[in-house]
């Protein structure tokens, strides 16, 4: 694609954004982006203010507790990430919650009380007061879809919302199991995080109600 065409498209996006013309933005982005050498990624932004009560949050011999520096090697082993990633999160003040089966760490998730960050999209969004962003929830691969993450979500949502705190999460809607688990636990879609990239450059990354 010619650079001049690219710049014109970018100006068009910016004008639509300035006018808060969300319908225009949707239509602009619904063009066949691959034809323009662009890639589009959408995440659903979910929020829970009142969790579902009909599912009992019970799993024998499974406990939830805060992650400590001693848990970092186990976290790194579960997801295959560098221990530095988890160390930095703890140092930044994010809260890690460990999911433990008979005392062994089999999963975890993280809470950020300042902003919602989706590293895959390089997008961040400030949180409202009394809100928390849930991210990087992971269960050991051989134990997925066995109720462990659902158990964690139900407890988290009931604890946080009982204190008047809204819980946000961003889910790739192509991951149907993750989406189903979040919706089943009481999350509702409140927006869409959309990003359009041209190569490594981010053209556009807004949030708007679905």
């Amino acid at each position, binding site marked *: 694609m010619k650079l001049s065409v690219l710049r014109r498209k970018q100006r068009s996006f910016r004008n639509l954004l300035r006018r808060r013309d969300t319908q225009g933005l949707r239509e602009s982005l619904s063009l066949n982006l691959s034809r323009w050498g662009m890639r589009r990624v959408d995440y659903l932004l979910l929020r829970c203010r009142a969790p579902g009560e009909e*599912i*009992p*949050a*019970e*799993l*024998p*011999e*499974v406990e939830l507790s805060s992650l400590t520096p001693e848990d970092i090697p186990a976290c790194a082993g579960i997801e295959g990430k560098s221990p530095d990633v988890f160390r930095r999160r703890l140092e930044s003040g994010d809260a890690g919650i460990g999911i433990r*089966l*008979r005392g062994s760490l089999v999963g975890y998730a993280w809470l950020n009380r300042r902003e919602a960050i989706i590293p895959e999209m390089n997008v961040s969004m400030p949180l409202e007061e009394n809100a928390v962003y849930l991210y990087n929830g992971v*269960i050991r691969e051989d*134990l*997925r*879809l*066995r*109720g*462990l*993450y*659902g*158990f964690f*979500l*139900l407890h988290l949502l009931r604890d946080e919302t009982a204190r008047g705190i809204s819980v946000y999460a961003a889910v790739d809607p192509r991951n*149907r*199991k*993750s989406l*189903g*688990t979040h919706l*089943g*636990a009481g999350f509702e879609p409140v927006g869409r995080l959309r990003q359009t990239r041209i190569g490594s450059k981010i053209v556009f990354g807004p949030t708007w109600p679905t």
Partner: protein
Amino acid sequence: MPNPRRYTMDNQAVLRRIFRELLHVSEKDFGDNLSPSSVPAWDSISHLALYHALEQEFGVTFSIGEILSMDSVSAIKCFLRNKGVEFPEAPE
């Protein structure tokens, strides 16, 4: 200690109903090979609801090892049989 349902002709029907109500599996699609990978609605939350429904309907209690090993209808039937709940044997 719960009193398990030893045998009724309806055990298979109860299992079918649980799968229909919780996981939206139709009568014609129900079978021993159903698993989380083949049932779109069988996610982590549904698994919690599933094992609670099984415990209530059949009057049994599952261990955490059994809950974490429930990865198909045939596995569920196996655990229920071990607790005295009978199902017709699958045809050879």
